[in-house]
């Protein structure tokens, strides 16, 4: 295996909540943040940026107004900066998927390690980024709620032996379900999730199952996909909407000691991908509490279980940091 040089410089794309939390933590790593990009511009200094100053500026206005900011396309900025690590912490946005994929490709073309946060790009490019020549160069721990290291580490075995996937990867619906089980209405459950800071400004992706479907396609692509072959479209995955849940049904299940979760499933064929609310018995490995995700891989002799705690932007930032730390130490997870 070729020896990968130890990364020293980091280019962060997307200084939002996760990006800022990542930058605050990155001071603990032996890396230098040399560039920060938002949707308007890139701020760059190859001697290392004054991150706090840039973030203070960003809190009130776009980076384009920063002195010496370069208002160039982000893919171009990635090439110009040439950082060892590109951390893409932009939030998932279906409309921005193509751009996110191009940013990732630009980073990899440039020889960088790519730390990913958003799932939409992975749901398009998982085989391209996790298999073949890019193996070990893309960190997906944050994308998959803190289970990405395990997936990459076990990818050879899973690609050989896995028969199907079952994922509980959407924490927002778990919080809503648990509120309903305690007697709340669906609307009250949604309000509880909002009060806990779990809802995006536009929470549609959580509500209509798109978030879970996108994660399912991303993982399906890693385990069953092939380079050069398009993945199933997340938008075409059968999905149930949390807003149509029958609260009484969920409460009746809870009285029987069972619970309900939004479970994303699919087999190797790829033509049966679905996201549905399922009844789960007490002790089901999929009955994850609302502070974690569970990614299950069906093997001949049982269910391989990966649990992750990268829920919320602070823990997501920690997962990103772990990816970068491993890359910085020359220990990027490889299958």
């Amino acid at each position, binding site marked *: 295996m070729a020896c990968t040089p130890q990364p020293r410089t980091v280019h962060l794309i997307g200084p939002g909540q996760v990006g800022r939390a990542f930058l605050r933590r990155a001071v603990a790593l032996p890396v230098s943040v040399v560039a920060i990009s938002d949707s308007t511009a890139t701020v760059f200094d190859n001697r290392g940026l004054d991150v706090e100053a840039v973030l203070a500026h960003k809190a009130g206005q776009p980076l384009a107004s920063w002195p010496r900011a370069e208002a160039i396309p982000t893919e171009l900025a990635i090439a110009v900066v040439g950082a060892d690590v590109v951390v893409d912490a932009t939030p998932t946005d279906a409309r921005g998927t193509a751009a996110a994929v191009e940013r990732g490709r630009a980073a990899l073309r440039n020889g960088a390690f790519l730390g990913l946060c958003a799932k939409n790009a992975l749901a398009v490019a998982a085989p391209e980024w996790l298999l073949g020549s890019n193996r070990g160069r893309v960190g997906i721990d944050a994308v998959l709620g803190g289970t990405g290291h395990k997936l990459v580490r076990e990818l050879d075995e899973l690609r050989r032996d896995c028969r199907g996937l079952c994922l509980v990867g959407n924490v927002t619906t778990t919080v809503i379900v648990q509120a309903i089980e305690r007697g709340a209405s669906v609307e009250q459950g949604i309000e509880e999730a909002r009060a806990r800071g779990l809802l995006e400004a536009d929470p549609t992706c959580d509500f209509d199952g798109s978030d879970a479907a996108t994660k399912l396609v991303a993982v399906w692509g890693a385990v069953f996909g092939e380079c050069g072959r398009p993945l199933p479209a997340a938008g075409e995955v059968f999905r149930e909407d949390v807003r149509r849940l029958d609260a009484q049904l969920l409460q009746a299940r809870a009285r029987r000691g069972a619970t309900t979760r939004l479970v994303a499933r699919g087999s190797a064929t790829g033509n049966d991908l679905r996201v549905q609310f399922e009844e789960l018995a*007490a*002790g089901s490995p999929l009955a994850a509490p609302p502070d974690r995700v569970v990614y299950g891989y069906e093997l001949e002799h049982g269910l391989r*279980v990966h649990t992750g705690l990268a829920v919320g932007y602070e823990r997501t930032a920690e997962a990103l940091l772990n990816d970068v730390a491993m890359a910085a130490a020359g220990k990027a997870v490889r299958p």
Partner: protein
Amino acid sequence: MSALITLPPGALLCHLPARFPLARGKALEGAVLAFERQGPAHAPVVVVLGGISAGRHVSAHAAVPGPGWWEGFVGPGLAIDTSRYQVLGFDWLGGCGNSTAPGAGESFPFVATEDQARALCCLLDALAIDRVHAFVGSSYGGMVGLQLAALAPSRVQRLAAIAAPQRSCAQASAWRAVQRGIVELGQRHGAGAEALALARALAMTTYRTPVELQRRFGGAPSFANDRVRFPVQDWLEARGARFAEDWLPEQFLCLCNSIDAHEVNAARVGTPTWLLGFGGDQLVPLSQVRELAAALPQLRAFREVASCYGHDAFLKEHRAVSAFLREVLS
């Protein structure tokens, strides 16, 4: 990072709190406890836990038909009657089952017997079980039972502790220290699995008695190529190799340390308790069980059984152990 968790059919999973603080510092993050239930769903619950090599699968049942570690004691019509009781077992944290444990080459925080007891409390919470009808623990399982009865006596109606002490005795700790030394030496030299098998072979000699080993393996040695080989060696090597198939050195070290660090304040054990000790047990001598019996505020009975099987008598003495269990559960 931790060992792979692959749940076979019939195995269940409890997600422990996101951060599970440990008694001797540090914490487990996102840990899970694999468990198994058998018996009627609404029957009184009996928790059954054995030594460090025992796990969640106590005995064969419809959902998991393979043999468990305590066949002959647990099942329909047996001493722990699964037509009357629901039996609950779990895999030890840090051990070779499907609960959170160290993977190969990984460090892992110190897991104390108190931690196993608190993990069980989390499992009971998850299953909405306020109080179990009984806790039956042998060896390490008995240590954990004593901890549970000290930490949360209200959660256990009765405790049966078999071959379990307040703290490990010096001789047992000495033997285990040598076992750990063997494993650590092997790890340093890239032979962790072989060293683990050797350590287990040594451990086997401490589980049994001189009487039993002489009776089974007292035959003449064989000589070949200037080497002498005794009949007992085949048995020791087979048991060691079998153990090393399932266990990682890191997992053995974790639970071996846990046994030796075990200490419970018997005066705080607030649950009616039945004790069973075995004459010939080199790891938990009867004197230690007597000492524990004298210190327990709610001792219901202390039974002594002479056995050539030593510490392993809890696996071998069907009649005596079954009678004891029936007494506890009656």
